[in-house]
């Protein structure tokens, strides 16, 4: 099991290192001392990785490479157990690799395809590796999301870092540790237990052997028989609230995002876009002569400007005289009709991460034979990600190859996108994922990388392109709108027995009914969408949880039962019962302050191996809703970093409030009408109550991701509370306009739509 493939490269002394644009910046530039050596290994790695010489086993591979200043170890692991089932569709070949660069004169580098967008992956992965190497976290340096250096981890999304990457990293690091200790033991002639790893070598009782010295022995190394990961009870680094590693840079304004980069000779790009969604460039009329040094790039509907400064670029863009054609979008009033008309039948995809059809029992008969039945319809609109840092990319061409710095979530997919658009092989594209000023699923695609690459190709210089806020709304994609139809049946005793759940357009994630209902049919109908749509934090689980939880609330109301008791009665999952019970106690469920319009609401979820319940207290005054306080009870298995986990949970609740109460992309005819922050409301200080977190840390259970699940329970908890406060069932998001339509109905004969 612990065998590996090994390969040993002699450092080619004196071999000429041709300039390669892939390697002239980024990692290599970051460290001057080992520059040559690194450059060389990196290139070899790039061309030769996954070509092992020896084959010891198929379960784990290691690449082992000597360098003047250190060596690189690549361990590649199959995803095992639960991780195998959890593999994301875009993941390449169900393997995860970890690469470690051990050096004598520099911190240990860990290379990973994951990226940091604020969710704490950098800190968490450092903790995982440090734990297994038995080193302090600051002895490591994470190199993230550089497609030329890092293994393809399939992108950073779906909260896979905790359940998938962390275990893989730990296993790989444990393997590296044992291997190094074995080598050092025979080198130093000391027994293994007396040795320990340090930042630069292996320390024994008598002396320390530096990593490069060990490299030469690696060629003939026998892989360690076992490499146990540290049991949770013995964790020193994992499970601790390690603060964000680059916190100091953040509070000093020194952290550089893609939008902050400056390359020598860099020019500034500016895209010229029409006023319509999907504008087509009809004609570009002759305009005034452009100033010296300003270039225009036109390619089909693509129109952009490159200039030495941003001001010049903007001015030049404004002086162009294009005529744009727009196409009318399907009116919003017809959206649901369109979803139904174009809906495809759900298909079961066994083994998929998010199967589109899940059935059990005989739901149709069970529904019609149920003495009590309920049918409801729910909907939610398109919403935008609104990452605070708008997309930004810097592209540079050299020798027909392009390097792009971009704070994206899926560097390898972006690489593919750029290669396709530019008509060059993927190996001629290098994406260096810069840490991102938040993303929420919105930075998976590479529109801006393609645009920057296109501009830079003509400019013959590095080009930086930063989208403005409006482009964030109009040039990218949205969280899908959705229509959900649910019908269900209960027996005389009020026990649910039939469940039929249709999701149109929004997606399959979280569609399964985790409640104990013997007959169930849950299906996702893909449909045609007038607007571009894509991933959003937690994907369709927001839509599916909203409908499922509100439907449960409706039943509890019909049966005049406490919603928590009702849910507990319908689940066999002890952990879910726990979060409901313990959360209710801690929150003071049923003990809302006695004031007009004040009520409490609850919603829970069982998602991605996490169990969670949100309790919220609100006040409804007319068409206004004030959130007074909230508590999230959360059990995500082992809490790998409790402080960060709380931070993620509170943040997801805050973000969920926007989608629940007021966020909605507004479009009419050919245009998006609210493509700016003064028209598109997102949650502010005053909208977000203090959110207490009750963390249930279960060290014995593998950690589930937590960046996403908490957002799913926000809307149903608020909708439930609004009903209890006002008697109104609001089944369409966002809730505030829905409440307003009831409280202040438009006068029957009013002209035009209400503002």
């Amino acid at each position, binding site marked *: 099991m612990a065998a590996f493939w090994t390969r040993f490269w002699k450092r080619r002394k004196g071999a000429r290192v041709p300039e390669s644009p892939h390697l002239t910046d980024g990692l290599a530039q970051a460290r001057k001392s080992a520059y040559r050596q690194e450059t060389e290994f990196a290139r070899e790695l790039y061309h030769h990785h996954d070509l092992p010489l020896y084959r010891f086993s198929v379960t784990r591979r290691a690449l082992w490479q000597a360098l003047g200043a250190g060596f690189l170890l690549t361990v590649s692991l199959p995803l095992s157990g639960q991780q195998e089932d959890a593999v994301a569709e875009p993941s390449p070949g169900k393997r995860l690799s970890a690469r470690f660069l051990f050096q004598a004169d520099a911190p240990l580098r860990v290379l990973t395809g994951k990226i940091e967008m604020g969710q704490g992956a950098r800190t968490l992965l450092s903790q995982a590796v440090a734990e297994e190497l038995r080193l302090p976290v600051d002895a490591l340096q994470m190199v993230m999301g550089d497609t030329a250096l890092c293994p393809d981890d399939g992108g950073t999304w779906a909260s896979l870092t905790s359940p998938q990457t962390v275990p893989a990293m730990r296993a790989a690091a444990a393997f590296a540790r044992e291997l190094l200790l074995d080598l050092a033991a025979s080198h130093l002639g000391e027994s293994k237990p007396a040795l320990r790893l340090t930042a630069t070598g292996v320390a024994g009782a008598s002396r320390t052997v530096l990593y490069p010295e060990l490299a030469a022995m690696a060629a003939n190394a026998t892989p360690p028989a076992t490499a146990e990961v540290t049991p949770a009870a013995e964790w020193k680094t994992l499970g601790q609230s390690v603060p*964000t590693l680059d916190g100091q840079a*953040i509070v*000093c304004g020194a952290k550089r995002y893609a*939008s902050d980069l400056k390359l020598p000779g860099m020019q500034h790009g500016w895209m010229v876009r029409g006023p319509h969604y999907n504008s087509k460039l009809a004609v570009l009329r002759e305009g005034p002569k452009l100033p010296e040094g300003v270039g225009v790039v036109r390619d089909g509907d693509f129109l952009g400007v490159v200039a030495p400064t941003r001001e010049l670029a903007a001015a030049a863009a404004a002086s162009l005289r294009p005529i744009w054609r727009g196409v009318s979008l399907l009116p919003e009033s017809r959206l649901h009709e369109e979803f139904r008309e174009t809906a495809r039948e759900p298909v079961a995809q066994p083994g998929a991460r998010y199967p589109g059809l899940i059935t059990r029992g005989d739901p149709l008969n069970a529904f019609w034979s149920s003495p009590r039945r309920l049918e409801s319809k729910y909907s939610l609109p398109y919403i935008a990600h609104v990452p605070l840092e708008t997309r930004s990319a810097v592209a540079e061409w050299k020798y027909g190859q392009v390097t792009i710095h971009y704070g994206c979530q899926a560097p390898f997919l972006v690489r593919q996108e750029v290669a396709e658009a530019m008509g060059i092989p993927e190996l001629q594209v290098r994406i260096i994922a810069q840490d991102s*000023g938040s993303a929420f699923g919105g930075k998976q695609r590479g529109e801006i990388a393609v645009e920057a690459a296109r501009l830079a190709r003509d400019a013959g210089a590095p080009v930086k392109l930063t989208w403005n806020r409006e482009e964030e709304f109009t040039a990218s994609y949205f969280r899908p709108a959705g229509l959900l139809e649910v019908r269900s049946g209960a027996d005389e005793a009020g026990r649910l027995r039939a469940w039929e759940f249709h999701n149109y357009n929004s997606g399959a994630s979280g569609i399964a009914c985790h409640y104990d209902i013997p007959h169930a049919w849950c299906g996702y109908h893909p449909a045609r969408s007038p607007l571009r749509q894509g991933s959003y934090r937690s994907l369709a689980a927001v839509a599916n949880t909203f409908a499922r939880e509100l439907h449960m609330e409706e039943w509890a109301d019909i049966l005049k039962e406490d919603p928590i008791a009702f849910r507990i009665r319908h689940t066999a999952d002890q952990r879910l019962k726990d979060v409901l019970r313990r959360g209710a106690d801690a929150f003071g469920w049923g003990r809302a302050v006695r004031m007009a319009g004040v009520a409490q609401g609850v919603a829970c979820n069982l998602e991605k191996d996490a169990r969670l319940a949100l309790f919220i207290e609100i006040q409804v005054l007319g068409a206004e809703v004030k959130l007074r306080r909230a508590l999230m009870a959360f059990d995500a298995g082992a809490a790998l970093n409790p402080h960060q986990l709380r931070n993620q949970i509170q943040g997801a609740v805050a973000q969920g409030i926007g989608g629940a109460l007021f966020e909605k992309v507004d479009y009419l005819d050919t245009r998006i009408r609210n493509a700016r922050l*003064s028209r598109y409301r997102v949650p502010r200080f005053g909208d977000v109550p203090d959110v207490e977190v009750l963390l249930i840390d279960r060290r014995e259970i593998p950690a589930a991701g937590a960046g996403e699940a908490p957002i799913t329970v926000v809307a149903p908890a608020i909708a439930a509370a609004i009903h209890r406060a006002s008697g109104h069932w609001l089944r369409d998001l966002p809730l505030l306009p829905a409440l307003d339509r009831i409280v202040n109905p438009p006068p029957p004969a009013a002209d035009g739509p209400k503002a």
Partner: protein
Amino acid sequence: MPRYELNVNGKPTTVDVQPNTLLLDVLRDHLDLTGTKYGCGEGQCGSCTVLLDGKARKSCLVAVSQVGQQPVETVEGLQRDGKLHPLQEAFLKHGAFQCGYCTPGMLMAAKALLSETPKPTRDQARRAMNGNLCRCGAYGRILDAILEAAEGGSRA
């Protein structure tokens, strides 16, 4: 091109730019003070908040020609003699960020708040900070940090 003499973080600085160039762009593109961020360009998000004569201003709404002799303070000027400002300390202690993109603007807005109201209540702080967005939703922690700095901070 006109020349502007500015006082940024206590240092006299000159830039040659058009009069309507935004202070935000001057700081970021011409002075390489990239701690001040762009988020919306219309005064809605507060990522670009700096202090102008001690008052919090959205630098995306200020043209360089309006700055004159008013001292400009940015996040890069918060540290003194290599020591973090109490607000910076408090933000670190409370982990009052995720991606950190809003943090510079938050720090500057908070500094202005504390210089006007040295001991704000939580609700006062919440209201005063309402013009600054954190999309990662670290609001509660940011308030914790501000209140802590207000307690202990002499320089705030």
